[in-house]
């Protein structure tokens, strides 16, 4: 096999071995590796916290915008009641612009929520790995120390050459290397996989879309105006305006805060 799977596996193993070769005492290596894993976990957790903070900030902005939007609608209604259609038109135009911002922010909010869930999952998975490694590390260290003591006793007792002891140590070191490699490979790729934080807000618009949005915003304003006029007149709303009334209902639904999870 020479494809992507094999090559990626080889590179991960080479990295783990490089880290191992720098250390002398396998027990120190294990402790060092554990420390590194804790640091990685900390980074992932910070990532989760950062995303959650951004999400909260967006929610606050959304609430503010919705508040402003409601205020402008109210102002429009009052202006119309006073016979100032020009003022009402202005208020509703501003409100339409705000609604567009609200829609954009809602899209960003959804993206961030997705990222947050992904990162939380990665952090949980990494935590399980780190816990498992800690147990394994302590077992290996104890076994290593015992093997060293046994070697010393054996040497003292029978006076045999160091060669035998070296064989035991070599086996032990090989086991340590394996554990180190397993844990490191696991921790590193979980971290890599969790780093999907790039560009949660890439939402550029082209000119045509902006123009279309502007036009549809204008239509909304006209519909709102007609609806308000009909309300003031107290008569039944004409057919074309019923659609506007339905739309208003939607707006009202949108204006209620929908992020009650704090």
């Amino acid at each position, binding site marked *: *096999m*020479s*494809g*992507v*799977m*094999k*090559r*990626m*596996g080889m*590179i*991960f*193993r080479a*990295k783990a071995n*490089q*880290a191992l070769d720098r250390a002398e005492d396998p027990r120190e290596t294990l402790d060092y590796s554990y420390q590194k894993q804790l640091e990685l976990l900390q980074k992932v957790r910070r990532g989760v916290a950062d995303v959650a903070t951004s999400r909260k900030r967006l929610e606050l902005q959304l609430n503010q915008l919705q508040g402003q939007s409601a205020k402008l609608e109210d102002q429009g209604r009052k202006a119309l009641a006073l016979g100032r259609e020009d003022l009402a038109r202005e208020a509703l135009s501003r409100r339409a612009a705000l609604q567009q911002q609200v829609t954009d922010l809602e899209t960003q909010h959804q993206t961030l929520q997705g990222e947050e869930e*992904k990162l939380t999952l*990665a952090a*949980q*998975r990494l935590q*399980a*790995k780190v*816990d*498992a*490694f800690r147990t*394994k590390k302590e077992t290996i260290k104890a076994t290593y120390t015992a093997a060293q003591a046994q070697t010393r006793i054996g040497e003292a007792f029978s006076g045999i050459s160091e060669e035998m002891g070296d064989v035991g140590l070599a086996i032990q070191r090989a086991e340590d290397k*394996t*554990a180190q*490699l*397993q*844990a490191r*490979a*696991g921790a*590193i*790729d*979980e971290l*890599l*996989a*969790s780093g*999907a934080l790039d560009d949660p807000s890439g939402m550029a618009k082209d000119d045509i879309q902006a123009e279309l949005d502007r036009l549809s915003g204008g239509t909304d304003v006209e519909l709102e105006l007609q609806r308000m006029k009909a309300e003031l007149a107290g008569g039944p709303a004409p057919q074309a305006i019923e659609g506007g009334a339905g739309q208003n209902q939607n707006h009202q639904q949108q204006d209620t805060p929908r992020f009650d999870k704090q």
Partner: protein
Amino acid sequence: MIVRIMGEGQVRLADSHFAELNKLDDELLAEMESGDEDGFRRTLHALLDKVRELGTPLPDDSLEPSELILPTPDATLEEVRHLLTDEGLIPG
């Protein structure tokens, strides 16, 4: 053999499945080298689906070394290319 899908976890696969997976894996490498982003994405997803379908997932707290590693499903061609260079995305 144990295969890791980055960001998802590990699965255990019988060796008998490797001929089938090899084909997709070689295709993926070819598409990566030729810079065929669409083909790369399609083949990566096909390969991941196949691995998930044929493999048995390992528990999150197992400490088995992965013999093969696959990129995360949303990895771009550029990211995978970067992973496969000497420097890689991992420092040190």
